[in-house]
């Protein structure tokens, strides 16, 4: 990733950009986020197959945003997140430059978010074979079996909210689960509290989740919560003909028309 290092250095030297968000070598063969502010530190940037953390999570973080204009090393899932965040007015060309990383690990700088949008639309959001198998297995279960599956999986959850913190779309300053007047979701991590939290989380992400698996990767207990999101993504595909984040337009879950042909919505 010499290209990325070189470009990051130039952007910082010319003061076009205040901070470059990328990956660095972490501990114990892990990689992690790096925030480069000094040109000479751009040499720490790396990119390889271990770099799966969705860096878009950081572009809404107040401490990072406060640094000024950001550039971000963005793989396709990160670019998808950025477009969705731009749609939701969380980020714009004014404060973000995308240094795209193609599936072939090449650097691809984008002039603006419109170009990023065009580029990512070349790639369908596909659910991979191993997840496909898991989803099919769940779909094949009886309602009772599926209920048991989720109760068993969600029961260990201790509500550390790593899934929420790792998700680029969970940028709300106050999450529904944090409200106490009224208290929508029980705080204790008992069976009901866990079930309601995870269902709420999944539904709030419907039509927004871009399937990066960040939530499941973040879970310290290995709970496969992304299966809920993947299923919703599939439903969105089935009923509304595919899903791609867009900068402008009608949005899957927040569009309402008085003359909708469905009665239930009126």
């Amino acid at each position, binding site marked *: 990733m010499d290209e990325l290092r070189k470009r990051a250095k130039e952007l910082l030297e010319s003061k076009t950009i205040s901070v470059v968000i990328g990956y660095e070598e972490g*501990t114990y063969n892990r990689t992690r986020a790096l925030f480069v502010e000094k040109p000479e530190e751009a040499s720490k940037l790396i990119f390889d197959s271990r770099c799966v953390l969705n860096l878009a999570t950081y572009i809404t973080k107040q401490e990072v945003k406060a640094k000024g204009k950001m550039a971000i090393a963005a793989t396709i899932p990160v670019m998808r997140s950025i477009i969705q965040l731009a749609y939701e007015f969380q980020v714009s060309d004014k404060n973000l430059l995308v240094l795209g990383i193609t599936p072939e690990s090449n650097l691809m700088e984008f002039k603006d978010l419109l170009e990023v949008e065009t580029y990512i639309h070349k790639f369908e959001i596909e659910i991979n074979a191993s997840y496909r198998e898991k989803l099919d297995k769940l779909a094949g279960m009886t309602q009772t079996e599926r209920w048991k599956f989720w109760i068993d999986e969600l029961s260990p959850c201790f509500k550390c*909210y790593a899934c929420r913190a790792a998700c680029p779309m969970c940028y709300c300053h106050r999450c529904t689960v944090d409200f106490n007047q009224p208290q929508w979701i029980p*705080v*204790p*991590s008992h069976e009901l509290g866990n079930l309601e939290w995870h269902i709420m989380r999944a539904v709030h992400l419907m039509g927004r989740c871009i399937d990066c698996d960040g939530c499941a990767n*973040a879970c310290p207990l290995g709970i496969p919560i992304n299966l809920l999101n993947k299923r919703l993504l599939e439903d969105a595909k089935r009923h509304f003909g595919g899903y791609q984040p867009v900068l402008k337009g009608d949005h899957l879950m927040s569009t309402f028309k008085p003359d909708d042909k469905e009665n239930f919505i009126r």
Partner: protein
Amino acid sequence: MTIDKRIVRKEALEKLFEILKQNNRTIFAPVSKNGKTSFKITESYSSIEKDFIQTTQSSKESVFPRTEKILDFTKSKNSLDAKPFDILQVPEVILWGVRPCDAMGMGELSAIFNWDSKDEIYNSRLSKTTIIGFSCFKADESCFCTSVGGNPGNIEGSDILFTRLGESGDWLAEIITEKGVAIVAIAQDIFQKTENQDKNKYLAEVPVKFDRETIRKKLDAFFESEEWVEQSLKCIGCGACAYVCPTCACFDIQDEIHGKSGSRVRCWDSCGISQFTLHTSGHNPRAVQSQRWRQRIMHKFSYMPERLSVYGCTGCGRCSRACPVDMNILEHLISIQEVTL
């Protein structure tokens, strides 16, 4: 007191488990699922995970559950009837397969739960818990018990500590407390007399990485350091580190009300989460993540030793393993030790 040492033959360990089970003890032991090992109520010896470095969660949940009812209440016309948690309900528990760093953590939890008011529920749970520790014969790069006053064969906190005597598969049992003696009393045939055995050669090697006293002293003048900002920029503010920690004891109180009755529940909470210190006014004294991260380290390495005479870290390394963004406590402690003020 000299510690009574016994030998337990390879195949006799399972017998001990069966005897304890027949004694109506609830046994929590490490069980693996989805590649994660955690303490679960265990009925069969075969389901226990034997080959693990560390469980994902600590064993603190048996004495400090993540969600615990502390009282039930019913409202009537003119009164409120509150029924506190009945400590007599607390079962006799065996914690089986506890690593020395977790057993040591019980002492730190006890210091917190008895700081000013004595926490009856915690104390009764701990008093009814017998800890059967297992020394570590392997460690990983996250482990640093030897830097925080522990070691892979530390007896502190355990009632009995087993150390595997190499390839023979036999076990050295150190009978440390009265509770340990009580276990030996119900399983006398299993605990055989032995000559003095040296367990040290069978223990994992965990090199010392820093000096906690140096860090404690340094923290006195470190509050305003830019290092906190530097270290915490990548922290995403979840509670994973606190919830897997054997010594984190912060909790939140919630009332769960259904009509005229309800329960008061205490739930784990974490200083890493922004809402932890949010005031009703909207003011948050720890407004940014660097202040929350600072609190975590200061609490464990400065405030606890100052107020409770114990450190809040046993070097189990769980927080580093659990962190989704590679916040590594060992790396950060070393850099605090090295940075010049």
